[in-house]
């Protein structure tokens, strides 16, 4: 089952390159359904039999490639497959007016999925590096899709930042290989020490990954890239792509070399997260452009993920467990909510013909479902109940309390209020009655897609126990 999750997207990527004239629907949808089924089947298998490894081509570890699936991995695989299928349905409708872009979108889309699945399944640093590179190239390609000047500029900026990040990561990988003679994470974890070369390697890789995850103050490339891309692309980038580099960061700090990282360094990462929350929210509040507001909101929300490090390094096992659960839940909730938000904003922009916040008047009447999806996703982002975002916030708060780190507690509460401040700017204008412009009709499927994801973010508030139980089968990265 495991290799299928790489084979399916790669095969369909080939299909969409080789058969540019074939009807897109016939290729994309079956592939996505297959991928979803495969990841669900793998989840069931992991649930029944526990974590499993797969040797690609039958070669043993030092030589061959090992794919590793555990409870956390299958959660991420299923998340990816689910968000991908919804975004794809949206894209099928949305991209009808972009004939030229459509031809490049689908191959890039499949490569993106293949690299994401590869990253979730990889057990060694080199494969992670390859996955990360593939991911970067397909993501940059998708940002540049329209070929307009601003989007090309954003794409180039993104590319430079990502390549710089890769450089740091690769340097760290080299150092680690020189020291331990292997790149398999499990092998290094068994023999890793806290010597200087390991620490330098971890530091280099961390900086590279922070750059790729767009953690404050290295977030400069994200708003133009995510805010300028086409709606389904923005949704995929904010929901999934930035999470991949965060996932690797968490692996490094918590699994690979837990002894090599000092609690003080973890506090520094937490401080960066706090900076991201405050600065990102403030910038979101200042935006006049709707899509840029949502993009800055991503900068802010990524900050919460950084609290994993101070809350789980140098704290009690219970606090670390809570922090880990809270972070995973936040990752899931943000993926659903932010994808829903980008999709709903895409529909709003389509209906309005512009993306200026102050001219949203009349939206609540003319495009109510898109605004409603925006609202539901905002509930989760604000961390208000009932939603996955609230449960995540609750777990992080409990972890902060338990480990006596009240300062993160305060930041989390303030972050929620700042989020409310910027999302309610949108609602405030939407309730103004007199509309000054025409509204273009939009396809109902667009609303269905956004609502599905938004509803998932809310429902996660009631079924948070499921992913958490699945994860507990193998205590994935818990410190």
């Amino acid at each position, binding site marked *: 089952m495991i290799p299928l999750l790489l084979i399916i997207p790669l095969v369909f990527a080939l299909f969409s390159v080789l058969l540019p004239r074939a009807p897109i629907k016939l290729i994309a949808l079956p592939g996505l359904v297959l991928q979803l089924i495969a990841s669900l089947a793998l989840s069931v298998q992991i649930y029944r039999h526990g974590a499993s490894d797969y040797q690609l081509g039958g070669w043993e570890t030092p030589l061959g490639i090992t794919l590793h699936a555990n409870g956390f991995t299958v959660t991420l695989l299923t998340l990816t497959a689910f968000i991908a299928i919804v975004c794809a349905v949206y894209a099928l409708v949305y991209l009808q007016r972009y004939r030229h872009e459509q031809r490049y979108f689908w191959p890039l889309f499949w490569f993106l999925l293949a690299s994401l699945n590869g990253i979730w399944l990889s057990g060694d640093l080199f494969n992670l590096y390859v996955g990360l590179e593939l991911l970067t190239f397909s993501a940059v390609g998708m940002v540049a899709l329209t070929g307009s000047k601003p989007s090309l500029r954003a794409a180039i900026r993104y590319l430079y930042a990502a390549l710089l990040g890769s450089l740091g990561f690769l340097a760290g990988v080299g150092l680690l290989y020189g020291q331990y003679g292997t790149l398999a994470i499990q092998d290094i974890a068994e023999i890793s020490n806290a010597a200087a070369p390991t620490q330098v390697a971890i530091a280099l890789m961390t900086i590279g990954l922070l750059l790729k995850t767009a953690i404050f103050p290295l977030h400069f490339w994200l708003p133009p890239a995510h805010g300028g891309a086409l709606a389904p692309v923005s949704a995929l980038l904010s929901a999934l792509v930035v999470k991949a580099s965060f996932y690797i960061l968490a692996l490094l700090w918590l699994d690979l070399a837990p002894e090599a990282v000092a609690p003080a360094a973890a506090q520094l990462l937490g401080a960066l997260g706090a900076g991201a929350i405050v600065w990102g929210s403030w910038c979101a509040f200042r935006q006049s452009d709707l899509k840029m507001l949502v993009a800055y909101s991503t900068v802010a929300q990524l900050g919460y993920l950084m609290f994993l490090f101070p809350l789980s390094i140098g704290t009690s096992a219970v606090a670390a467990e809570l922090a880990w*659960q809270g972070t995973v839940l936040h990752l899931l909730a943000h993926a659903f909510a932010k994808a829903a938000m980008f999709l709903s904003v895409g529909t709003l922009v389509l209906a309005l013909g512009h993306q200026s916040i102050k001219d949203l008047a009349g939206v*609540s*009447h003319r495009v*109510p479902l898109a605004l*409603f999806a925006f609202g539901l996703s905002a*509930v989760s982002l604000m961390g*208000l*109940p*009932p939603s996955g975002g*609230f*449960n995540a916030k*609750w*777990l992080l*708060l*409990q972890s902060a*309390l*338990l480990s006596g780190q009240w300062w993160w*507690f305060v930041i989390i*509460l303030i972050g*929620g*209020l700042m989020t*409310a401040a910027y999302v*309610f700017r949108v*609602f*405030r204008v939407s*309730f*103004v*009655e007199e509309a000054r412009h025409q509204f273009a009709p939009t396809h109902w499927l667009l609303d269905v897609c956004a609502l599905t994801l938004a509803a998932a973010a809310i429902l996660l*508030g*009631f*079924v*948070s*126990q499921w992913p*958490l139980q699945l994860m507990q089968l193998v205590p994935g990265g818990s410190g």
Partner: protein
Amino acid sequence: MNELLPVAVIGTSLLAAIVIFLLPDAQQRVRSTLNIGAALVKIALVAWMTIGIYQQELFETRFTILPGIDFVLRADSLSMLFAGLSSLLWLFTTLYAIGYLEGSPHRSRFFGFFSLCVASTMGISLAGNLFTFLIFFEMLTLSTYPLVVHRGTEASLRAGRTYLRYTLTGGAVLLLGVALLYGYAGPAVGEFAETGTLREVAGLDTSVLIAIFAVLILGVGVKAAFVPFHGWLPVAMVAPAPVSALLHAVAVVKAGAFGIIRIVYNVYGIEFSAQLGVLLPLAVLAAVTIIWGSLQALRQVELKKRLAFSTVSQVSYIALGVALFGPIGSIGGLVHLLHQGIMKVTLFFAAGNYAETLGIHRIDELDGVGKRMPGTSLAFTVGALGMIGLPPTAGFISKWYLGIGALEAGMAWALGVLVLSSALNAAYFLPILYRLWFKPVRGAWPDEKILAGRFETDPWLLLPTLATMVFTIAAGLLAAHAWSPLSWAILVSVREYLP
């Protein structure tokens, strides 16, 4: 079946909300039928559960959402007190809102959020632990915002912003309190139980518990409009009249007051709270709010603003009753939860009728309205006399029990507060009554929208007003009846004290 009933009570409104959202604005008949139908079904379900509770049946829905933390809906005698009030008044507010709003734009949106708001209120009343309470408490904030800004004017958007600033900050403080309590004493103490849960947990530091109590009360106190956190309530008066009725009588401030009751009775426990010494500060806070609200009400020239400050004052009677240690004081506080709702809803309906029929917003425009609109004015009079606390209205029963409770608790000063506040109530309501009935008409009405026909105004507006007026008198006259609010409050109160 009993596990599903609490979900069904919330589900009826939730389902109604979803269907109404999807209806086009023009589908008036379908929407109204659905609204009224859902309200009736809900009353039936609540009545069913109330009878069950009386016979000691258990209605509980429970599932785990986070490790160690359950989502619990459970009906107990206290929740039926609030659920009964909300479901009954929802019916009348819905009828009134249909008369008030049909014909204006965005009705589907309005009634959709209206139903969501009631679903959250039901959730608040049925929540079986603090965590679940918090969920619905915040959901209420979110579902009332679109109602406050419904008119989309500059003033209502400003009001909406003020409303959010207060309630979201209050919500964050409540979250802080709940997280602190769960983190400090474990999730088990959050389960609402008669006579409280905290006293059974050993080894807790009392000063920490007092601090957490303060944070929790502060969190719910914003919605309960405690001075100085009452600023949102008068500003939110720009909303349509049925929304004001909802905010003041059925849902929002009541959710705050109900939260105080839950925290004091079912988490800390009344006896344990008395031991901790937190009841006196709460009583003082309530007393200050009662006097301050009444003084502010005196200064208002707009009718709805005066009513708003009157709410600030009257809701704190509930908190005062809770803070009086002793069953009699508790009865006074609990029964006022119901009585204030019935009386205030009558007053707001009447104020809405004046505005909708004759365009009257200011108190000095009310001269001689009693002759033009006798039914509405009669209802207003009964509501006002109830607020002052004259027999045989519901307000008299509340104040009687509160007064005796104050003496029983050894807080004679609270009786003084009650007397002073009643005098102030009289000072701001009696001049209105004088204007209504005894002053001559001053000429043309400000903006006569509905001409007098068979009724003085639209029957959809008049009949709910008269119905709640009848309830105001009935709750007072029939207080000794087995199913009166008073009897139910006695039932609840007796169970909260240790034998």
